[in-house]
């Protein structure tokens, strides 16, 4: 491949992808994946060609990918144009489509599926990789979470020049990131510990003192360079920056700290990142307030026990009603057994509706949790059944997409 041919073929690819994506969008099929799929079919090297000479930042992990990527994109836009897969199309096809949006943008901020990260890193490398967390999710698809950590670790070992921003409080992430040449460690607490009971290094028992974990083999939580606490992000050796996010919860404070640290690696001052992140009110429809009938409904996404754990922490208290909408399609995982790892006991004393295509699984779980509920498989109809006032509609991935399509448009 000559230097002359490369840009022209990249332009041709980009034109094809954007053309197909536009047609696909107009015909109502959604545009973010199909163009990439066809481009990869025409040219197996499309991803490498489109990514070359750009600063690429990847964000991966079980929970918080889309939000952290949105935070990071907002921070980086203060410095110049970027490409960003904002609709969450995070497999190789979605990355190709995102790169094709703007061939002149010098930076790419891309969320990437946990299983796709290792092969894509081996193919194109990256300047920055943000590793958020790893916990049980879609076990029928990803298999076991330790295997994902092992694949990340191997890919990072061979990734020259990469700077990893890693969540120090998650032992699996710390182990995967430990292989990278340069790491910025972030701490914001780890309430979900069911997937980090044993040491990824030696198999021994991990013990915790507050947020600091360690194993007898010597593997222990790295000292954090960036710490998020309620209302503040503190950089090592610096002062605490006040942060007033509009997105709720400990998880979003953690996501913001990760994004701030990653933006700093490519030269964005922390103050500029904070201002950009504070302006974000919703991410791909999540946290959006919509009116359904006479109810004011907040749309929330929770797709696994760790995610639900975070949502239960910031859910509005009773009398706000709750709709629990669960599907079990491919992107959700076909097995909703994980509902039994969620503390639905905490929902009590308010109107609750079991919803989604697997409303009956939710209903059985709620019954054993002692939470009185109605059953209504259509999440929007479920909201209509509830008393006026605030409704918290918590849905997993495809259930959320269906709600967004029905009521979520601005």
């Amino acid at each position, binding site marked *: 491949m000559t230097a002359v041919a490369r840009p022209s073929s990249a332009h041709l690819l980009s034109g094809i992808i954007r053309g197909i994506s536009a047609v696909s969008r107009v015909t109502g099929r959604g545009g973010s994946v199909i163009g990439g799929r066809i481009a990869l079919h025409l040219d197996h090297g499309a991803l490498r060609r489109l990514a070359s000479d750009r600063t690429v930042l990847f964000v991966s992990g079980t929970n918080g990918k889309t939000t952290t990527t949105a935070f990071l994109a907002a921070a980086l836009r203060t410095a110049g144009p970027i490409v960003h897969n904002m609709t969450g199309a995070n497999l190789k096809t979605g990355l190709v489509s995102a790169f094709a949006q703007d061939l002149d943008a010098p930076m790419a901020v891309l969320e990437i599926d946990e299983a796709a990260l290792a092969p894509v890193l081996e193919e194109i490398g990256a300047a920055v990789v943000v590793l958020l967390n790893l916990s*049980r999710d879609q*076990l*029928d698809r990803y*298999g*076991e*979470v*330790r295997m994902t950590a092992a694949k990340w670790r191997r890919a990072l070992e061979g990734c020259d020049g990469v700077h990893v921003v890693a969540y120090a409080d998650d032992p699996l992430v710390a182990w995967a990131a430990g292989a990278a040449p340069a790491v910025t460690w972030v701490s914001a607490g780890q309430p979900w*510990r*069911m*997937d980090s*009971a*044993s040491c990824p290094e030696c*198999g021994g*028992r991990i013990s915790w003192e507050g947020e600091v974990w360690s194993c007898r083999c010597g593997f222990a939580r790295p000292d954090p360079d960036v710490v998020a606490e309620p209302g503040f992000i503190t950089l090592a050796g610096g002062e605490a920056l006040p942060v007033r996010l509009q997105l709720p919860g400990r998880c979003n404070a953690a996501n913001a700290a990760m994004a701030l640290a990653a933006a700093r690696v490519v030269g964005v001052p922390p103050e500029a990142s904070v201002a950009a992140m504070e302006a974000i009110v919703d991410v791909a429809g999540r946290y959006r307030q919509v009116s359904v009938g006479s109810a004011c409904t907040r749309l929330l996404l929770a797709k696994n026990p760790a995610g639900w754990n975070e949502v239960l922490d910031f859910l509005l208290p009773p009398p706000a009603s709750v709709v629990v909408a669960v599907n079990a399609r491919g992107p959700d995982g*076909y*097995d909703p*057994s*994980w*509902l*039994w*790892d969620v503390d639905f006991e905490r929902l009590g004393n308010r109107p609750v509706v079991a919803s989604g295509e697997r409303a*009956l*699984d939710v*209903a*059985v*779980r709620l*019954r*054993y949790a002692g939470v009185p509920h109605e*059953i209504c498989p259509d999440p929007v109809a479920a909201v209509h059944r509830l008393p006026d006032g605030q409704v918290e509609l918590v849905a997993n991935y495809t259930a959320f997409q269906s709600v967004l399509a029905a009521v979520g448009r601005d």
Partner: protein
Amino acid sequence: MALLYPELLGTYGDRGNARVLVQRLLWRGRPAELVEVNRGDVPPSSCDIYLLGGGEDSPQAMAAVELAVGGPLERAVAEGAAVLAVCAGYQILGHTFCGPEGVPLPGLGLIDCTTARGKGPRVVGEILVEPSIGTAVPPLSGYENHAGLTRLGAEARPLGSVLAGVGNGDGTEGAVSGRVVGTYLHGPVLARNPALADLMLSWFVDHLEPLDDGDVARLRQERRQAVDAAAGRWSTGRTLRRASG
């Protein structure tokens, strides 16, 4: 009830089995207590029912090591206790199971069976089983997700025969040996199959009144239909053995 090592063997919501057993006694006004046994703790020997769940290869091997120390589970079983062991938990109750990197490891030998990695891809999907336990247990509904396949010896009998899915891999599913029950079914299995939960409780508590399981009945019917629809779609693909009649 004792839930053993949920941090090692609890990946697939199997802790729900403990909740189901406790709650079905409490709803009937009977006392019930649940003890969670974590790594490094010695399991109490005085419980009636011990529960083990599914988990990943290396935590599974660790749980087997923990349980081998002093033989608390063997002792409790010898004194009449029951065990429900799911997936990885089921495998470690046999003579050998498949450890990390495919190395065979010794199990507890509470069930006369051995588990080795199957030749095919990992078994993942809805499963339906005609049970051969109890007199009033309707077909067992669940979800299986395992790489190992299990061969029963003469001392163990299967929990049932597979109507749809894979189970042990030879048309049988799970194993029963006295009051020790092993199965590949998640769901969790006792949430989807309250008759199996009540059967196990009836080994220790007399006169269990019926409960209103209307929502579970609807869920079971829905899953049955899903299995039937999948059987129609994939009738040339997966291992399917349809019940006659």
